């Protein structure tokens, strides 16, 4: 396998770990988990270099979540330059089809083969440079995008792993089981399962409501023999932060604002322990 030399393998050889964030179901928080994963990995060490690639071509959310709406991608002699969420420090590189659209309401109406071509370009033409982690956010399902990713990254298969995100209700868990079958079929390593939107704390009385039920993810992980990485409650502070249009950084102003604000959300602390689990097992 190592002898296979493709533009993708040449580009991704300098990436230590590639983590694909999957879920059969839509709207369970793949993008928000991807964003949190990237931010937490970034914060885990002052020298960590992290990339985040959004291959949800018809519904890209990552630019908005990292406060990068409206940025564009530049060409250089060495390929496309990703958008850096932390400004001049350039340790958090981000790439999404959202950066390529002129107008944010433009729809990308593409069938499979065109999506495949775009993904190949993202993997082979983006100047990621040396990265410790590349987090890949995917659309829901197990179709063109997923198969293309795995196909193009076959030469670097040993660097690949995945995380599965779910919400606790039965409808979502069913799709997750399909997703798990997918990882088995393509021989993709799974770090484990994250249960998102597990309970909501009422801001008035502190009562915990299980808006989308709870515990379903943990039960399933046990049944399927999958490591359970943790459950994230609904965190309105995080929802607001990732939904705000505030720019990630300002010219001249120091600091990476999204990260600073992220660190103060309740989710950041829970996510830290998830990232610790990943760092330990990847070390």
């Amino acid at each position: 396998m190592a002898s296979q030399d493709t533009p993708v393998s040449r580009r991704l050889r300098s990436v230590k770990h590639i983590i694909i964030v999957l879920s059969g179901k839509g709207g369970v928080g793949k993008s928000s988990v991807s964003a949190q994963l990237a931010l937490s990995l970034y914060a885990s060490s002052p020298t960590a270099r992290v990339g985040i690639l959004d291959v949800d071509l018809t519904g890209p959310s990552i630019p908005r979540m990292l406060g990068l709406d409206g940025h564009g991608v530049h060409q250089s002699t060495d390929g496309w330059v990703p958008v850096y969420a932390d400004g001049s420090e350039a340790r958090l590189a981000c790439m999404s089809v959202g950066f390529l659209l002129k107008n944010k309401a433009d729809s990308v109406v593409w069938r499979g083969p065109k999506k495949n071509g775009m993904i190949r370009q993202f993997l082979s033409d983006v100047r990621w440079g040396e990265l410790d982690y590349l987090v890949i956010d995917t659309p829901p399902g197990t179709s063109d995008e997923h198969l293309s990713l795995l196909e193009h990254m076959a030469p670097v298969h040993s660097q690949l792993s995945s995380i599965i995100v779910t919400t606790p209700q039965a409808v979502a868990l069913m799709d997750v089981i399909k997703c798990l079958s997918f990882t088995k079929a393509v021989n993709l390593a799974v770090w484990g399962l994250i249960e998102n939107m597990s309970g909501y704390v009422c801001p008035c009385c502190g009562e915990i409501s299980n808006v989308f039920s709870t515990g379903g993810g943990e039960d399933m992980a046990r049944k399927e023999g999958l490591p359970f990485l943790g459950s994230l409650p609904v965190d309105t502070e995080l929802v607001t932060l990732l939904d705000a249009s505030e720019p990630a950084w300002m010219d001249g102003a120091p600091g990476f604002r999204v990260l600073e604000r992220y660190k103060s959300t309740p989710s950041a602390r829970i996510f830290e322990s998830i990232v610790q689990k990943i760092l330990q097992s990847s070390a």
Partner: protein
Amino acid sequence: MIAIQTATAVPNPISLPSNAPEHCPGTESELAGKVDACAGCANQDICASSEPKGPDPALPLIKQRMANVKRKILVLSGKGGVGKSTFTAQLAWAFASDDDTQTGIMDVDICGPSIPTILGIASEQVHASSSGWSPVYVQDNLGVMSVGFMLPSSKDAVMWRGPKKNGLISQFLKDVDWGDLDYLVVDTPPGTSDEHLSVVQYLKESGIDGAVLVTTPQEVALQDVRREIDFCRKVGVRMLGIVENMAGFVCPKCNGESQIFKPTTGGAKRLAEETGLELLGSVPLDPRIGKSADHGLSFIDEYPDSPATTAYLDIIDRIKDILGDA
């Protein structure tokens, strides 16, 4: 396994074939079949010959089947997990509550079919007869078709690329014995890709009566719905309006209302104003909605007094109004 493995790609009636290569010049182009990108394409011979291209052989069959369907409604949303399938099910249940109304649901979410679970018929199977595949009936006047009925086990992943998905959708439209229907509600996967293009193209001749767009209040979801609106305008599908789901959360203990998914940019109301569409209504977030869906129960029948039920019924009445069926 059953029929799905024989699902074949059918050439597309309009613009690009679904199995076209990445840089296909378009079948209408003078260069069709003659450029580098055409090398190896299954359609190259057809394109390169100057003979007029016949229409898709599936189209007349679909038209024939659909001639017995009065109303065809799409449920769309750019974003996943906003409640498309739940809304589809409620809409169909509401239509079918009238014994004389024949209703059908077609689930074209091939990779993540939720409709069978939500309707409580997950263990059913499709049967074939001389007149085609029989839908699975939830009640006398509510028939359902989904890829979920065709999998040997619910654990199986459907790892299909576009052309295979398109083939199955065309089969759902031409080979399913829908019978005479008053309403056919089509539940779609998130996005604006193969499934959406195929449904629109296959139903172009029979006519789509309208699309309902489902969203949640936060900007991340609205962004995707704006793309879906752009898609509908591009392909010329009439939009009936927007439904906002998961709008406010009422704590069952203190009855205080809070916003889980905050409308940071004005929510669906602003979106409706910006795009000139009608906001059909807002459904509050009620944990019992999700629970009913998990157990295959109809929320509006189980909890007729809930504010969410009132919201659902108002929206459904409004949809009937717009269609002129009230």
